[in-house]
């Protein structure tokens, strides 16, 4: 079930270094790519159907095709901010296979004709930063980066930029603002970064995994890449599995693999023989699936959308029946409230309400009406803001409450009972 293409050599410690990477055909695809026409590479990425692995799933080749031909310097940015709760795949890739990322980036930069790229690494990833920094140095020393790369006439410079602890800097326009030395506040789109990005220059922002996959497309060709996955979701994808499974971790599987197989075969099922209750299939922003949905869904963009959720960043959070959904929602709402950048009223105020309401339901100081209010506020937050963080907070609320309504009602009404009890000095039992 696991198909190790991107992660083929993850278990080899020497793979971190340039020397080790070269033992396994490292930088051979770059050599090959430099003999191709840049447009041909973009076309291959399009044909291969590679979709962005950072969350939105937008086709990478199509995005590259949006770059205007206005003679302006183009930038490539690797989004290594990885702030989505549940996601830890980009960190693993940087730590174990930094050259794989760098090679993918140089090829991508060549394809879009960019002389300069930045890897925006989340600030907390000190170790990853050191590893990637070292790899970049090695690449420069071997003329894989810098001027006239391997005598091809193509020059490219690469640099690392460290974030400073803000989830919103994972959003591409927030990331660009941050790179410009400002607050990481998103900007209204359009214009999209491809037209007006870093310092108002055309800029492509792609996720770590997306850029690394470009190398595989060069190696295996369009057909070879499409050998795995489904027609509309080709290739393999890294999934970070966490929560209550026996063997959490990163797994590379062909898109379209049943979630059931991931949980029960790859990850060894639930801990301590517990029962599956729910699964968040694509990072904390993705609507939750109940047991029945989780057992029947396939892990690809389309099937997840059909089931009312999304693939997102590929973080599968497995929840067993010992958990209170009210409690988990409260944890998530605290997160979104904390991370809202505060520009849009529906998000700034809304996440605050959601956090407070879920907290009071959990603590038993809410009423039945507050459950309704929770949904009402979430509904008001959708589609009304500059970036998708507001939606990302609303989706879990709506899915948690609709699928686990009983739990929310009982948390809220347990409290009605308590209030009644304290008012009358006697116990009140609901019919």
């Amino acid at each position, binding site marked *: 079930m696991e198909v190790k293409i991107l992660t083929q050599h993850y278990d080899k410690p020497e793979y971190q270094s340039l020397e080790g990477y070269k033992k396994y055909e490292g930088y051979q695809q770059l050599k090959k790519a430099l003999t191709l026409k840049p447009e041909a590479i973009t076309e291959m990425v399009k044909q291969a159907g590679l979709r962005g692995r950072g969350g939105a799933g937008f086709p990478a080749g199509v995005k590259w095709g949006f770059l205007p031909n206005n003679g302006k310097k183009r930038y490539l940015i690797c989004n290594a901010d990885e702030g989505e709760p549940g996601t830890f795949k980009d960190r693993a890739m940087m730590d174990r296979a930094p050259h794989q990322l760098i090679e993918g980036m140089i090829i991508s930069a060549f394809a879009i004709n960019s002389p300069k790229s930045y890897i925006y690494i989340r600030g907390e990833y000190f170790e990853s930063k050191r590893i990637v920094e070292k790899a970049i140095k090695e690449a420069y020393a071997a003329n894989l980066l810098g001027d006239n790369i391997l005598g091809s006439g193509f020059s490219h410079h690469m640099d690392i*930029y460290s974030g400073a602890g803000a989830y919103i800097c994972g959003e591409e326009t927030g990331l660009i603002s941050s790179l410009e030395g400002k607050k990481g506040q998103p900007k209204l789109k359009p214009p999209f970064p491809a037209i007006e990005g870093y310092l108002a220059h055309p800029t492509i922002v792609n996720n770590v995994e997306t850029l690394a996959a470009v190398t595989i497309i060069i190696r295996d060709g369009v057909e070879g890449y499409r050998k795995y996955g489904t027609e509309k979701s080709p290739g393999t994808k890294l999934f970070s599995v966490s929560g209550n499974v026996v063997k959490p971790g990163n797994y590379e599987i062909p898109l379209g693999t049943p979630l059931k197989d991931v949980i029960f075969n790859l990850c060894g099922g639930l801990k301590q023989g517990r029962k599956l209750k729910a699964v968040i299939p694509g990072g904390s922003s993705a609507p939750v699936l109940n047991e029945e949905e989780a057992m029947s869904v396939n892990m690809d963009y389309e099937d997840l959308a059909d089931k009312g959720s999304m693939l997102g960043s590929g973080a599968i959070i497995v929840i067993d029946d010992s958990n209170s959904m009210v409690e988990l929602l409260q944890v998530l709402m605290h997160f979104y409230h904390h991370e809202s950048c505060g520009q849009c009223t529906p998000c700034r105020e809304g996440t605050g309400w959601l956090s407070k309401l879920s907290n009071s339901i959990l603590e038993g100081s809410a009423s039945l009406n507050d459950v309704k209010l929770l949904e009402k506020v979430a509904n008001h937050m959708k589609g009304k803001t500059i970036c998708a963080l507001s939606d990302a907070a609303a989706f879990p609320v709506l899915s948690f409450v609709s699928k686990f309504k009983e739990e929310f009602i009982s948390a809220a009404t347990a409290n009605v009972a308590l209030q009644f009890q304290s008012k009358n000095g006697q116990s009140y039992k609901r019919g």
Partner: protein
Amino acid sequence: MFTISEKTKAFITKEVSRYETKRSAIIPCLFELQKDNQGWINNDCIESLSQFMNIPSKDINEVFHFYTMFNKQSVGNFHIQVCCNISCHMNGGLDLFQVLSDKFNIKPQQVSKEGLAISKVECLGSCGTAPMMQVNEKYYENLTKEKAIQLVNDLVASKKQN
């Protein structure tokens, strides 16, 4: 007025020259400045940086206050950050936070007499090895309460030997 060390001044000068706009250097320079001032930054530091970089302090303040990794008060010798987001929460993150706070008598927003500070933090990208914590720049994963206590004990002891 806070005095920026020569080493940090050299860093700032180099950093500013690396970017097309001076502003891009603010974040890396704040990180460096933070090291200069025992891990946290106050108004005085910002003023000095503003003068040295020749950037209005309002621009620096904007950045300083937006990002959580710039500390507004001392975080001691060891800043223990316990992840309490969803996957860690399901695997005992809160317990870990509580046990460490109690055992080492660390109050929120304060530094203990052993030089420890503790914070609950959001997901650190280590959810598959939950529960976890970060101490200064290092991750500690797959923790139990016992392991975490031992770790912190060791850190405190290592500092005493120095």
